[in-house]
C-alpha cells in the first residue's frame, strides 16, 4: 500500500497553469473593491491619483505527463469548469493591461497559498474536474492584481503593500512583476511554478522518547518551551514523578497528549485554582480563600438556582460541548460561545473563520448533535485611527476588523447559519490582541419519535472510534497550547489555519441524518488538541474506567509524512469524532460515502482505564486515563482586590464631550462605538433558515439598530428564543465590579427588547483576561486576578438574584502582547450572553418607531403614540460616575416589562446603551418617516441629572443601567404608566407620522429654546 502510494508520487507529471480574466473592467468587481478600500487599508497611497486595477484568477492543476489525459483535463477546464461568458480563460499568456500614461507604471502582484495551507478553491476545482472527466487531479488557486501607480512608487513600496494588504505572508506567498517583466518572452509570471509537495516519510520509528523521570527541571522546562507545550514547572514535575513510578521513558506522543489535555485552554487551570484573596474593598464581600472561581461562582450560581427549583429547564450544563436547555415542549436549545483571539491576531480572516466554524462544531457535537440555527459575533479591536506604524507582528485595527468580518461572513454565510446579533467595541487596549467572540445556538429535538434522549452520549466497550470530515494536516498544531501563551515574534505559524465551510456543511448534513437514523452513540468535535482531546474525552464515557485504543496511521491525511504525534494533536478543521456501535458501522460508513464525507475507522473504545495510541501495530502512547485527566496538579494563586479608580464622572463621558446640545447628539451618534454598523452587518446573512424576527437593523432600509435577536423556533407554534449580549471593557479599567454588572445588564436589556421571558432564561460567560499569573513581565498579576475574582463574585450575585443560571462558558487568560519593552494587555473583558424563551414572537416589540402598528397590527397609523423613558434602577451614580445597579430591581423590572410585552402593550422598545437616552431615542426614528417631540420639565431633568453643575441637557446622554425608551401600543398608555408607577418612568412626549422631508426630533427643555434635528441629519451622523 505504502509502496503503491510512493510510486504514484514519483510518477512524472506536468503542471497546467490556467488564468481567468474579466473580458471587461465592468465585470471586475474585485478590482473595484480593491481600489475603493485602498485609502482605508493602505493610507500611504491615499493621495495617489488615477488609481486603476485589474484582477485575474490563477489556477494550477497537476496532470499526469500522459498526453491524452492532460488534454482531456485541459479541455474540461476550458469548455466547462472555468467557462464563463464574462471572462476569458487562457492557458498561455493572459491579457496584460495596455501601456500606462507617461509617469505611471503597471505592477502585477501574484499570490498563492503556501504549501499545506487549506485551499478551498483548489479543492473545488479538483472536484469539478472529476465531475467532468472522472479524474481528480490536485489543483491550487491563486490571484493576481494589476495595479496602476505613479512612477515614484518603487518596487519596495509595492512589496510592502503586498505584505500588508494584498496577502498575509503567514499563509500566502507573493511575487511582484512590473509590466516590462511580464512582457518579457521568458517571463516567470507565465511559467508554471514548481509543484511543491510537503511531507515526506513517517513511521512508527519517528517517535521520540524522553527520559523525563530523571531529567533536570530546567531541561524539562526548556523542552516544554521548545515544543510549545506550555507546561508549568509543577506540571512537569508531576509528569516526571509519574514516569519515575512507571520506570520508563515518555514518548513524544504521550507528552503532547498530556500538554494538550492539561493546557489552560482545555483544563481552565486558573478558573480552578485555589485563590488567596486580599480584599481592600469595602463594598465587595469575598472569602479569604476562593476554592476555584468557576466552582464557587459560575457553577456555584447554577447549582444554587437549580437546587432552589428555579431552573427546571436545564438539561445539560458544563459537561458537554455546549449548555443544553429546554426551550419549548419539542425543542432544546444548545448554546456555546468561544473566543479565537490568538489566531485572529496572526491572521484575522483565518482566525475568525475557524472561530465561527469551530464553535459551530461545538454545537454539532452537543448531545448527539444539535442543528445550528444562529451565530453571534463580538469583536473588540483597537481604534480605527490608531497610528499607522505599530509594533512588529501587529495588524492595524482596520485590517483586523475587515479580516474578522470577512471570516465571519464566509464562515456563517457559507454554512447557512444566520448571524443574528453582535457588537464591535474599539479601545486602545485591544491593539495588542483583538478579542473575537463567536457563538452559536443549535436545536435538538426534545422528544424524537424513537424515544431516545438526544442529550446523552453513551459508549459501550467495543464501539468503534470513527473520525469523519476533513483530513489531517500539519495545520493547527499546538493551537491549544499556543493560545495559552502570550503573543511574541516567534509565535508559530502552524497555529494559523483556514476553514473549509463546504466540507463542514457536508459533515453537518451527514451528522444530522445519521443522528436521526440512530447510527452512532456519541459524538464530539475535533477542536483544540485534535484527536488527543476528542478521543481522550469520549474515552471517559466508556464503562467505569474509560479507555480507548486507536491506530492513528488509519486516519486520512492531507499529505504524507505526518508524524504520529502530529496526527494526534493536529487541529485540522472540519472533523468530528464518533462512537459507533459495531452493528451500525456498515450503515454509518455507507451513509458517509453517499453524502460525500470521508470517514476513517481508528480503533475502539474500551473499559480498560488506558488510552492507547498505536501507529500501525506499534504502541506509541499508553496513558492511564486517571493520570491523563486528573493528574495535573492544581494551582494556588494570590489575588489583590483594589478599591475602584477615582475617575472623573459626568453624564457625557469625555469621549462625547461637546459644549452644545445640537452638536452633542450628532457627535455622539457618529462616535466609533455608537455609529451604525449596517455596512458591516449587511454582509452577513441574517435571514437564512427563515427564523429571524428581530434583526440587526430594522426600519425601512435597515437603518435603526435592533437590540439582541429574536428567532422563531418552530412553524407549528409561535414560540421563539431571544438572545442578548453585554460587555463593558471600557468600564473594567475603572471598576471591574461595575463592569460585570453592566455586562450582565446590557445582555438582559437586549434580550428583554427581543422578548425574553426572564423566568426562562440562561446565561453564558466568556472571559478574556490579561495574564493573571505571576511572572517577570507581569508585576500586577495579583490585581488582574483580583479583578477576575470580583467579576465572578458579582456575576454570581446577579445570576442568583435573577434566577438565571450559567449554562456554558469559556475563559481565555493570556491576552497579552509583548515585544521587547512593549507590552499591551487587553482590558479585562467579560462577555455575557443571555438566552431566553419567547412566548409569542408576534408580540416582540419593534426596535424602531416606523409604521405605527403595534405588535398585533391593524392600528391607525395616523395617530400619535406616546413615548416613555423607563428605568428599573434608581438613577443613582457612584463616586466614579458609574451607574449603581441593584439586581433585585432589575429582576422586578424585567418581569413587569415582559408581562407588558406579552400583553401587546409595547409597540417598540430600545435599550439605553452607548450614547445614552437621547441617542436611543434618535436611533428609533432612523429610516422611519416619523417625528418625535420630547418635552422635559425641570423636575424631570433633575431626576435624570448625574452631577450637579453640568448643563441640564447633559443628563440626556447619561448611560444608566436597566433603562429603555419605549413606544406604547395604541390605547395602552394608562396600563404602562400604572405598571411602572413604582419605577422611574418619564412621560417623554409623542411620536407622529411625518413626511420624509419634515421628519425629525424636537426637544423642548423647560426654560430653553426648543431644539430640532432633521431626521436626515441624524441618519447622516449615524451612518457617516
Amino acid at each position, binding site marked *: 500500500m505504502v509502496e503503491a502510494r510512493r510510486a504514484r508520487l514519483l510518477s512524472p507529471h506536468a503542471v497546467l497553469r490556467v488564468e481567468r480574466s474579466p473580458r471587461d473592467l465592468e465585470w471586475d*468587481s474585485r478590482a473595484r473593491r480593491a481600489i475603493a478600500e485602498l485609502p482605508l487599508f493602505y493610507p500611504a497611497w491615499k493621495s495617489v491619483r488615477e488609481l486603476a486595477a485589474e484582477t485575474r484568477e490563477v489556477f494550477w492543476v497537476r496532470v499526469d505527463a500522459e498526453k491524452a489525459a492532460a488534454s482531456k483535463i485541459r479541455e474540461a477546464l476550458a469548455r466547462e*469548469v472555468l467557462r464563463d461568458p464574462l471572462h476569458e480563460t487562457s492557458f498561455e499568456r493572459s491579457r496584460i493591461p495596455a501601456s500606462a500614461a507617461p509617469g505611471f507604471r503597471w505592477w502585477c502582484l501574484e499570490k498563492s497559498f503556501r504549501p499545506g495551507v487549506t485551499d478551498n478553491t483548489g479543492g473545488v476545482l479538483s472536484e469539478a474536474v472529476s465531475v467532468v472527466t472522472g479524474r481528480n487531479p490536485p489543483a491550487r488557486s491563486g490571484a493576481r492584481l494589476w495595479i496602476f501607480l505613479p512612477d515614484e512608487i518603487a518596487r519596495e513600496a509595492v512589496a510592502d503593500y503586498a505584505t500588508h494588504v494584498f496577502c498575509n505572508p503567514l499563509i500566502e506567498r507573493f511575487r511582484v512583476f512590473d509590466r516590462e517583466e511580464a512582457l518579457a518572452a521568458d517571463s516567470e509570471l507565465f511559467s508554471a511554478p514548481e509543484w511543491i509537495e510537503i511531507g515526506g516519510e513517517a513511521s512508527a520509528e519517528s517517535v521520540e522518547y524522553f527520559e523525563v523521570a530523571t531529567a533536570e527541571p530546567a531541561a524539562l522546562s526548556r523542552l516544554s518551551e521548545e515544543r510549545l507545550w506550555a507546561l508549568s514547572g509543577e506540571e512537569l514535575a508531576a509528569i516526571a514523578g509519574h514516569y519515575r513510578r512507571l520506570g520508563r521513558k515518555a514518548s513524544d506522543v504521550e507528552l503532547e497528549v498530556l500538554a494538550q489535555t492539561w493546557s489552560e485552554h482545555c483544563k481552565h487551570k486558573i478558573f480552578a485554582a485555589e485563590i488567596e484573596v486580599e480584599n481592600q474593598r469595602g463594598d465587595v464581600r469575598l472569602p479569604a480563600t476562593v476554592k476555584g472561581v468557576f466552582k464557587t461562582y459560575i457553577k456555584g450560581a447554577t447549582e444554587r438556582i437549580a437546587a432552589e427549583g428555579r431552573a427546571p429547564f436545564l438539561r445539560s450544563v458544563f459537561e458537554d460541548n455546549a449548555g443544553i436547555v429546554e426551550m419549548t415542549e419539542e425543542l432544546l436549545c444548545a448554546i456555546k460561545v468561544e473566543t479565537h483571539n490568538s489566531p485572529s491576531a496572526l491572521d484575522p480572516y483565518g482566525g475568525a473563520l475557524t472561530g465561527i466554524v469551530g464553535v459551530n462544531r461545538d454545537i454539532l457535537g452537543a448531545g448527539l448533535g444539535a442543528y445550528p440555527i444562529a451565530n453571534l459575533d463580538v469583536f473588540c479591536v483597537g481604534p480605527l485611527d490608531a497610528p499607522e506604524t505599530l509594533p512588529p507582528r501587529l495588524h492595524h485595527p482596520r485590517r483586523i476588523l475587515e479580516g474578522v468580518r470577512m471570516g465571519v461572513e464566509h464562515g456563517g454565510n457559507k454554512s447557512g447559519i444566520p448571524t443574528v446579533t453582535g457588537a464591535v467595541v474599539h479601545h486602545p487596549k485591544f491593539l495588542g490582541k483583538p478579542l473575537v467572540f463567536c457563538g452559536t445556538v443549535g436545536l435538538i429535538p426534545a422528544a424524537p419519535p424513537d424515544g431516545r434522549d438526544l442529550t446523552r452520549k453513551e459508549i459501550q466497550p467495543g464501539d468503534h472510534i470513527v473520525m469523519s470530515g476533513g483530513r489531517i494536516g500539519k495545520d493547527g498544531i499546538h493551537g491549544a497550547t499556543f493560545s495559552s501563551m502570550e503573543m511574541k515574534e516567534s509565535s508559530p505559524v502552524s497555529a494559523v489555519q483556514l476553514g473549509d465551510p463546504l466540507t463542514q456543511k457536508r459533515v453537518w448534513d451527514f451528522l444530522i441524518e445519521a443522528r436521526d437514523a440512530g447510527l452512532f452513540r456519541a459524538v464530539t468535535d475535533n477542536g483544540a488538541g485534535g484527536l488527543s482531546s476528542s478521543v481522550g474525552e469520549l474515552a471517559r464515557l466508556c464503562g467505569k474506567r474509560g479507555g480507548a485504543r486507536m491506530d492513528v496511521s488509519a486516519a486520512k491525511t492531507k499529505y504524507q509524512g505526518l508524524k504520529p504525534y502530529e496526527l494526534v494533536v493536529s487541529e485540522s478543521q472540519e472533523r468530528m469524532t464518533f462512537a459507533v456501535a459495531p452493528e451500525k458501522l456498515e450503515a454509518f460508513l455507507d451513509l458517509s460515502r453517499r*453524502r460525500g464525507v470521508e470517514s476513517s475507522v481508528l480503533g475502539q473504545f474500551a473499559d480498560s482505564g488506558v488510552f492507547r495510541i498505536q501507529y500501525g501495530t506499534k504502541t506509541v502512547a499508553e496513558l492511564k486515563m486517571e493520570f491523563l485527566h486528573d493528574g495535573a496538579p492544581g494551582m494556588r494563586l494570590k489575588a489583590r482586590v483594589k478599591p475602584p479608580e477615582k475617575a472623573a464622572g459626568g453624564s457625557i463621558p469625555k469621549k462625547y464631550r461637546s459644549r452644545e446640545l445640537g452638536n452633542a447628539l450628532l457627535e455622539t451618534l457618529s462616535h466609533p462605538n455608537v455609529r451604525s454598523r449596517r455596512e458591516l452587518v449587511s454582509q452577513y446573512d441574517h435571514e437564512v433558515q427563515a427564523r429571524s424576527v428581530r434583526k440587526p437593523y430594522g426600519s425601512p432600509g435597515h437603518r435603526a439598530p435592533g437590540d439582541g435577536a429574536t428567532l422563531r423556533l418552530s412553524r407549528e407554534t409561535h414560540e421563539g428564543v431571544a438572545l442578548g449580549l453585554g460587555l463593558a471593557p471600557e468600564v473594567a479599567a475603572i471598576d471591574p465590579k461595575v463592569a460585570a454588572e453592566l455586562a450582565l445588564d446590557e445582555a438582559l436589556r437586549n434580550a428583554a427588547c427581543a422578548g425574553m421571558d426572564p423566568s426562562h432564561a440562561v446565561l453564558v460567560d466568556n472571559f478574556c483576561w490579561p495574564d493573571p499569573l505571576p511572572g517577570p513581565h507581569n508585576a500586577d498579576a495579583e490585581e488582574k486576578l483580583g479583578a477576575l475574582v470580583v467579576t465572578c463574585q458579582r456575576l454570581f450575585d446577579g445570576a442568583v438574584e435573577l434566577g438565571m443560571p450559567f449554562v456554558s462558558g469559556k475563559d481565555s487568560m493570556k491576552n497579552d502582547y509583548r515585544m521587547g519593552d512593549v507590552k499591551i494587555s487587553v482590558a479585562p473583558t467579560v462577555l455575557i450572553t443571555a438566552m431566553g424563551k419567547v412566548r409569542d414572537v408576534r408580540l416582540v416589540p419593534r426596535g424602531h418607531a416606523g409604521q405605527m402598528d403595534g405588535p398585533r397590527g391593524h392600528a391607525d397609523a395616523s395617530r400619535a403614540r406616546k413615548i416613555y423613558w423607563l428605568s428599573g434602577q434608581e438613577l443613582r451614580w457612584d463616586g466614579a460616575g458609574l451607574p449603581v445597579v441593584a439586581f433585585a430591581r432589575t429582576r422586578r423590572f424585567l418581569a413587569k416589562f415582559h408581562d407588558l410585552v406579552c400583553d401587546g402593550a409595547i409597540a417598540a422598545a430600545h435599550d439605553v446603551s452607548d450614547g445614552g437616552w437621547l441617542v436611543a431615542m434618535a436611533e428609533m426614528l432612523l429610516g422611519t418617516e416619523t417625528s418625535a417631540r420630547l418635552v422635559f420639565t425641570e423636575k424631570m431633568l433633575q431626576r435624570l441629572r448625574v452631577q450637579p453643575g453640568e448643563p441640564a441637557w447633559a443628563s440626556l446622554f447619561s448611560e444608566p443601567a436597566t433603562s429603555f425608551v419605549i413606544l406604547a401600543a395604541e390605547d395602552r398608555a394608562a396600563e404602562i404608566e400604572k405598571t411602572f408607577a413604582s419605577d422611574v418612568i418619564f412621560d417623554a412626549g409623542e411620536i407622529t407620522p411625518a413626511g420624509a422631508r419634515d421628519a425629525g426630533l424636537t426637544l423642548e427643555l423647560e426654560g430653553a429654546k426648543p431644539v430640532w434635528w432633521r431626521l436626515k441629519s441624524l441618519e447622516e451622523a449615524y451612518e457617516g
Partner: protein
Amino acid sequence: MKAEPGARRTTSARVPIRALVVAGDGLNCEKETAAACADAGFRASILHLNDMLLEGERALQGVSLVVIPGGFSFGDELGSGKILALKLGHGLKGVIERFVRSGGALLGICNGFQALANLGVFNELGCDVVLTQNRGGRFIDRWVGLELTGASIFTDRLRAAGVTRLELPIRHGEGRLVFTEERAAAEAFEAGRCVLRYEDDVNGSWNRVAALSAFEGRVMGLMPHPEAFWSGELHPWGSGRGAEGGQIPLGVAMFRSAYDYFREGKREGGKERR
C-alpha cells in the same frame, strides 16, 4: 420546444401535488423552502443531490415542481452555481430538461437561480445569462422592494389578485444579472420574461431585473428569497404584518401561485398524457 400543457397536472383531487427540493453540497435553504412549498399546499420532500443522481429519472416521477434552493453550493468557488450545474448536467444527463419539457415546473432561488443560469435553462432568451459579482463587490443582506414586471406560474396569481409590488430579502454576493446581448435582453423584457424588478439598483443588474422565466413561465429563477417570507413577523418593518387577516405572506404566495396552477389544471380536467 413547445411544452405539452397540463402534462404534469394531476387528475384527481386525492392525488397530492408533489414538490421536490434539492439539498446537499452546500445548499442550505432546503428546509424552509420545503416548508414554504408545504404551506402553499404541495406535498414537499427534500432529496439529497447524490441520491437524486443515483435515482436519475425515477427521482422526478410524480413530481410537479422541482426547487433548487438557496445556499452556497460548492462554497461558491469558481463562480456561484457553476459546479452545481456541472454536477446536475453530467449526473442527470437531460433528466431535468425532459422534466420541464413535459410540463414540470422548475424554480431556482438565489444559488438555485445561479445554477439554472449555468445549466443554460434560459438559453431560449437568445443569449447567455450570467449572475456575476454584485457591482459593489460585496455580499448584501437586505429586504428590497420588487415590482412585478413579467409572467410566470409563480407570480400569475399574485398579479391576478392585484399585487403589483412586494418585499423580500436578498442575500447574495453574486446577483448581478447580465445578458451577453443587449437586444436579447430588451426582447426578454418586452416578452415579460423579466418577472421581477428591484425598485432600487441594489447590485447592478441589467435594468434592475431580479427574476427571469422560461418555458412559458414554468421555469423561474430569482435572486430574492420568497421562502424567507412565510410569516408576517419575519418582515423587518411594519408593512409585512397583514398576515393575520387571512392573507398569506407574499413569499409563500409565490409557491401558492404555482400550486394553484397545477391544482386548477386538474379542475380543468387536464389529463396525464404520458
